Structures are given as structure tokens and as C-alpha cells.
């Protein structure tokens, strides 16, 4: 059976009031604050920038909501990034920070580089070499928008 999902009223009919209310509350909590875990393989290390942009930095995948990939992911490091992502509890999101993480950037032609998009479901790309704190801030705000929209069924 095909289910149409184009608004919260439809979802209300489909799932009931309690479930939708819970989902909304959960989404609101998710969108308010995230703990990000940096995976750093290159030059733009973003831990201090994350603090300034309003995201708490943690070094344990079990405590993280967002995986912040920065630097060019080599094929060897890509396995580690994927493993860290798998260890994170749902709901989980990925930010690719810097040109190298987005598409390989400067090293895109190299034999050793894997694009983060090939192995991780990247939600937000923050371009720049290296990106400044304002760009990361905007990226985090974009991620919050995505979370809110996703739960509202848009």
C-alpha cells in the first residue's frame, strides 16, 4: 500500500497523536544540541572551531550525534571512519568539513583518497580550505534545519 507523506496532518492520521507528538519532541531535542566527533586525517583540524561554532566535541562514538569528517580520507582511514559511524547511536548525522572531505579537494586525483560521500551518508558539506568558523556555524545551522524538516515530514 502506498502511503502519502506530505504533511504532519497525514502523519497524524497514519501514526496517531502520541507517536507524532513523541517524534516531534525527539526531533526538537535532536535539533537543539549535538555532540560532534571529529575524525581528522588532514590539515584542517576542527575541534576548537566546533566549540566556537556551538557544537560540543566528544571523542567517543557512543556519545556522538554527528560525525565531523575533516581532511582527505585515505582508503585506510575510510574504514575507520565507517566503523566509527557504525558505532554511533541513531539518529546520527555526518558533516564533511573542508574541501578534502567533501570531494577529495586538492588530492582528488590521488590513488589513495576516498571521497567521504562514497562511504558515509553525508548530510552537510562545509566547503573551504580550510573553512572558517562562520562556515561551520552555517553548516551546523543547516544540519538543524535538515533534522527539523525530516521530522516534520517535508
Amino acid at each position, binding site marked *: 500500500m502506498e502511503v502519502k507523506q506530505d504533511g504532519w496532518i497525514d502523519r497524524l492520521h497514519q501514526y496517531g497523536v502520541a507517536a507524532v507528538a513523541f517524534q516531534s519532541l525527539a526531533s526538537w531535542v535532536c535539533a537543539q544540541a549535538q555532540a560532534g566527533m571529529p*575524525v581528522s586525517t588532514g590539515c584542517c*583540524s576542527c575541534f576548537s572551531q566546533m566549540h566556537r561554532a556551538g557544537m560540543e566535541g566528544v571523542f567517543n562514538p557512543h556519545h556522538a550525534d554527528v560525525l565531523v569528517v575533516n581532511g582527505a580520507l*585515505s582508503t*585506510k582511514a575510510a574504514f*575507520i571512519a565507517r566503523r566509527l559511524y557504525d558505532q554511533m547511536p541513531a539518529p546520527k548525522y555526518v558533516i564533511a568539513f573542508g574541501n578534502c572531505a567533501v570531494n577529495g579537494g586538492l*588530492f582528488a586525483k*590521488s*590513488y589513495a583518497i576516498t571521497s567521504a560521500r562514497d562511504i558515509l551518508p553525508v548530510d552537510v558539506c562545509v566547503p573551504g580550505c580550510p573553512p572558517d568558523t562562520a562556515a561551520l556555524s552555517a553548516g551546523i545551522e543547516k544540519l538543524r534545519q535538515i533534522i527539523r524538516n525530516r521530522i516534520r515530514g517535508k
Partner: protein
Amino acid sequence: MTTLQESYFMNIAPEPAAGIGMCRLVAQLDGEKVCRIDPHIGFSHRGIEKLMEEHNLLQGLVFTDKLNRSAPFSCVHSLVLAAEKLLGVKAPKRAECIRVILAETGRILSHLRATANLAADTGTDIVYPVVRKACQQAYALLDTVCVSCPPAVFIRPGGIKNDIAPQSKELIFNWLTKELPPVLIEIEELLTENRIFKSRTVGIGVIGEQDAVAAGFSGVNLRACGVKWDLRISEPYEIYDSLSFDMPVNPEGDCYARYLLRIFEIYQSMSIIRQILEMLPDGDVLLPDFCMGEKADSLTALSRRFELYGTGTALSAGEVYAATESPLGEFGVFLISDGSEKPYRCHFRSAGFPVMQALDLLTKGYDLADVRVILSSLNILTTETDR
């Protein structure tokens, strides 16, 4: 020492110490004691050496700069010297002086970062904000001095891209006399006589003179074992032979010795910059053959500029090795050229790679908690080690 059955293995990954980068250590432990450590490298391998073969020299500078993120100008400097050796040219005196100023500024930045990382791993997080503020000041200064040119392409074969800003002499002097000394005094007050810091570093990670030489140590790590070897004095390049500065050595060979040497070297670098500022000659900063600026009045100059933009400088055939004393140690570049614009083969002698292989020797017998202290005292960067 227990047998293999009694001991157990532990993974220390993905970032075993502050600011080192991605790396995996497989430690074999007997209780809390480390019996053996197996470093797994290659997580930051980006194939830069191979990429160098597909790009011309000016593009290659950008790749080389990405090797060492904590010290701008340090890796590019070696590549530029190698290229100049191959081309058989020598940069103007003023350009050499400015290059040395920038390299020493990079050394100060790198040593400050290394000290902050070591302090963080011994539990003194308070050094981080102090160093971060100092680094921000220094980067703002570099931005003004280089006239907003990115560090990677400022130093180039034949000199430097453009002359430094007219007010930079006063700015650098102000930085050396007013902004940097309070930071150093604060760091020294926090660490040098700190009882906890000393108990975590004195007598930890000791390596003997012969072992260090056999492993291929260089830079601060080698001088902390009492070996008098500094490329700036032993095999002087640029204008280092006309400057007077000390080569501090410390025979202890432990983490505390490395920390003391870094602080001492910062003072030496400050004195070097001050000496150069006093004798900075006037003149050109870039050889006319390598000039890509607006001054293309004749047809020959115009075609030369077009060639530089389009294909790059053709290297003369041959092979050459040039090394500089980077803040992490000896960083060397080995270039083979077949006469085209792109190097036929490029190999980097990274400073951290030989240190990585001695990690087992350095950590054997110490506690598990000492491993990250030893690692960050060695100041390894995996981006530089893995290339």
C-alpha cells in the same frame, strides 16, 4: 617480561595523542606495563609524492605545504631549495633573509603547538588557550607581512612571490619584543617547575645517543640525546652561516629534555629573526626569470610569463637532494628530473618516519599512561610521516 599468553593486546586509536593525527598503535601490555608497541601508519597517506609527478613545480608547492600543518613554510622551504639546486640558480640576498625569517616564525609556531600538546597530555590543559592566542597573533602577523598571500605559494623557486609589506619590520619587532615574551614566560611558569608536569616527563621515554642515531632521529629529538647535529649549523643553507646562534643540546634524552630544548630553541629563533631584521638588505626579491607579476614590458618577458603560467618552469635533468632543519627534524626532498616541467620522481625524507620506528624502543617498560606523553613529546605529525 611475561609470555605472549599472559599479556594482552590493546588498540590505541584513532588519535593516540593530542594533535598527532590519525594513527593506530597496537600495544602488548603486561598489566599496566607496555611490553611492545606496534605503530600502524598510513592513515593520512595521500599519495603526495605521486601527485608531485603529475604537477609542475608551483603546483607541487601547494601539496608540499599540506604535509606539515603546524609549521607553515617548513616543508616548502626544502622543495624550493631542491628546485633551485637543480636549476642552478640562487635567490637574491633579500629573499633569502625573508625566507629565513618566515621559516623561524614557523619554527616558533610549531614548537609552541608541540609544547601545548605535551602539556595537554600531561593534564595541563590551561596551556592550550595561551598558545592558541599566541598562534592567532602570529598568523595575523604573517598575513600582514606576506600581503595576504597563502604561505604555500609565498616561498617559491627564485625567491619569494612579492616583497613583504613596508610596515612589517616594525610589526615583527613588536611581536618579538612585546607579544611573544609574555606568552613564553607564562608557559614556563606553568610548566618548567610544575611538580606534576615534571613527574610525568622526567625520566620518561629515555633513548640513548647510539639508539637515536641508529634509528635516524633528527632535530630536537636527536639533540635531546646529546648529539650536536643541527642542519642550520652543520650544513648551513641560505644565510645561516652568517648568523650567530647556539645549538642547545641536552644529554638526558627524556620528555622533559625535549620540552626544555623546544623552549630554548624558541628563544634562539627570536634572536635569529632579530639579527636578520637588523641586517635586512634592500633589493629584488625574485629573479626576473621567475617573475609572474605585472612587469612584462617586452615581448620576451611576456612570452616567458605566458610559459610560466601555462606549463611552469622546465627543470634541468639530474637528481638532487636538499634538506632543511624543519621544526620536526630534518625534512629532505629528493628530486629526479628528466628535463620536463614535472619532476620524474619526488621523494620526501620526513622527520617523523624514523621516530615512528623507534616507538617500541622508547615506550618499552613504561606505563600505558606514559605512551601518549612520549608520543606528543616527540612531536610527530602523521600527515608528515605518511606523506
